[in-house]
């Protein structure tokens, strides 16, 4: 079959660690094929029932970007680091720097003293928008940024299992705890979930390093900054290979500048086009469908939101190469029209329908990278 043949041809270009994922996708793809063959595809209602037959979790995982790491694992299958996507919680956006930061902190880290607790806990939640920090919730336990939160954390059973002697740490001055910390291993292997629950970074003084509170605070800050830099490195294409903070920052600056310039260009083009824009539903739909089928593919923006590793699998396809400036492909086809038709029937021809059409178009297109990735893996 074409799909399996395509998969066989592509697997050569995919790195070995991707193959398990591919197999998962292949398995899911089989289910799709079965659904397709057994059900009439033309009717929009029929497609929905087809989907309903699909196990909902699988459908959601396969086709939606959910914030759970399990879905990411299902599609990309990569353990390792998860690229910083925008998380949506009940209709809001959140940049999960905190939750991913915690995972990073797990690698470096651990227990802070009472002073660091105060300092660090003050930093993290305030550095993000309140809705952000409250939104990063599924994996991060909500701890308010108060000093007594450290008490609660210390008394957290998970921590206690590993460090039984820390219960009174918070309110005591500098003590031999520092020495204990200094002696222990440089990297403590805490479970990532445990660290994810902590809203701030715990720092452990490594052997031979200064243990006064200032240095520890500085180290905590530095590690936090390093964690954020890593996130940004994953975000900006081509930054992974670069060594050195300054160069990475350079890349980031260039990237932001180029994005801003492109937005300005697009807005000027929009101004040029604007007089001719027909906000009428029919023409928007018709033109969109036409242009959608012809364009070339752009994966850049979705690299940011989707797990980074998934994007790399696509580099085996030629047309997935991303030249600057990127060009776009909207892989729609004629079968798309029933979808729009549905929208059209429901709409009463006012602005809402236009918005629905344009937004649906962009929405499906922008989110379409996800199924495209999966499709190509099939």
């Amino acid at each position, binding site marked *: 079959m074409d799909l399996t043949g395509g998969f066989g041809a592509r697997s050569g270009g995919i790195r070995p660690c991707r193959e398990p994922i591919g197999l998962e996708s292949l398995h899911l793809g089989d289910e799709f094929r079965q659904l397709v063959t057994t059900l009439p595809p033309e009717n929009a209602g029929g*497609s929905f029932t087809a989907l309903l037959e699909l196990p909902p979790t699988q459908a959601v995982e396969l086709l939606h970007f959910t914030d759970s790491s399990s879905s990411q694992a299902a599609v990309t299958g990569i353990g390792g680091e998860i690229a910083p996507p925008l998380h949506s919680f009940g*209709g809001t956006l959140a940049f999960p720097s905190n939750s991913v930061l915690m995972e990073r902190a797990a690698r470096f880290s651990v227990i802070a003293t009472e002073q660091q607790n105060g300092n660090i806990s003050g930093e993290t939640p305030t550095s*993000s*928008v309140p809705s952000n920090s409250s939104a990063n919730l599924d994996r991060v336990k909500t701890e308010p940024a108060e000093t007594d939160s450290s008490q609660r954390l210390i008394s957290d059973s998970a921590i206690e299992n590993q460090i039984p002697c820390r219960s009174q740490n918070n309110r005591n001055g500098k003590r031999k705890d520092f020495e204990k910390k200094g002696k222990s291993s440089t990297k403590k292997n805490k479970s990532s979930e445990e660290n994810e629950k902590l809203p701030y970074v715990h720092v452990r003084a490594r052997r031979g390093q200064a243990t006064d509170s200032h240095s520890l605070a500085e180290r905590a800050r530095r590690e936090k900054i390093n964690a954020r830099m890593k996130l940004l490195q994953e975000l900006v294409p081509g930054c992974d290979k670069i060594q050195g903070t300054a160069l990475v920052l350079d890349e980031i600056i260039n990237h932001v500048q180029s994005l801003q310039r492109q937005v300005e260009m697009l807005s000027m083009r929009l*101004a040029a086009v604007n007089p001719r824009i027909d906000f009428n539903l029919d023409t*928007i739909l018709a033109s969109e469908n036409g242009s959608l089928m012809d364009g070339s593919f752009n994966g850049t923006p979705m690299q940011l939101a989707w797990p980074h590793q998934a994007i790399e699998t696509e580099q085996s396809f030629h047309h997935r190469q991303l030249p600057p400036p990127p060009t776009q492909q909207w892989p729609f086809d004629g079968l798309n029209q029933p979808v729009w038709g549905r929208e059209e029937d429901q709409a009463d021809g006012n602005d809402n329908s236009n918005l629905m059409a344009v937004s649906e178009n*962009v*929405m499906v297109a922008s989110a379409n990278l996800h199924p495209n990735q999966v499709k190509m893996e099939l």
Partner: protein
Amino acid sequence: MERQIINKRKRVFSLQPNKNPNELFARRYVSHLVPALKKINMNKSSSKTNHQSFEKTVKHEVDMAFALSAQEFAWSRFLQQKLLSSPHDDLISTSSYPSEILERSSKKQGGEKHQDRDEEGGEIKKRLKELQKLLPGGEEMNMEEILSEIGSYIVCLELQMIVLKSIVQDNTS
């Protein structure tokens, strides 16, 4: 068959529109921008047909839609304030992006101790200042805030580009 699979998947998205944050942003953005553009169009016929001021107005609306679509982030609030405070006439195409360096932030960074250890600390400081210029509201943020905000800013910029490209491409040709 493959197309049917693709289309089935496409249709799935409308089941849970709020699940995908990209879609969320895109939808919000379009819902802000399209009516604004319509209004501009209607007003344009009545007012003077100065193309440059028209461009500025469009840019203003583009930025406004951008800021309104990402309310969860600090930079969007700064951008909104900036857009609301500056009158349309004074808008240059680049003015929506900050271009000043603030003394305050440089002093803040000068006080950091780790700079002593870090040989390229000065280099990094320079870059951070650049970043501050680029990010709306960057002047009021310290280093960590900038780093955390810049990620979401980049993602939203790229989503915005997708939307704008689709609108422009659909209406040219």
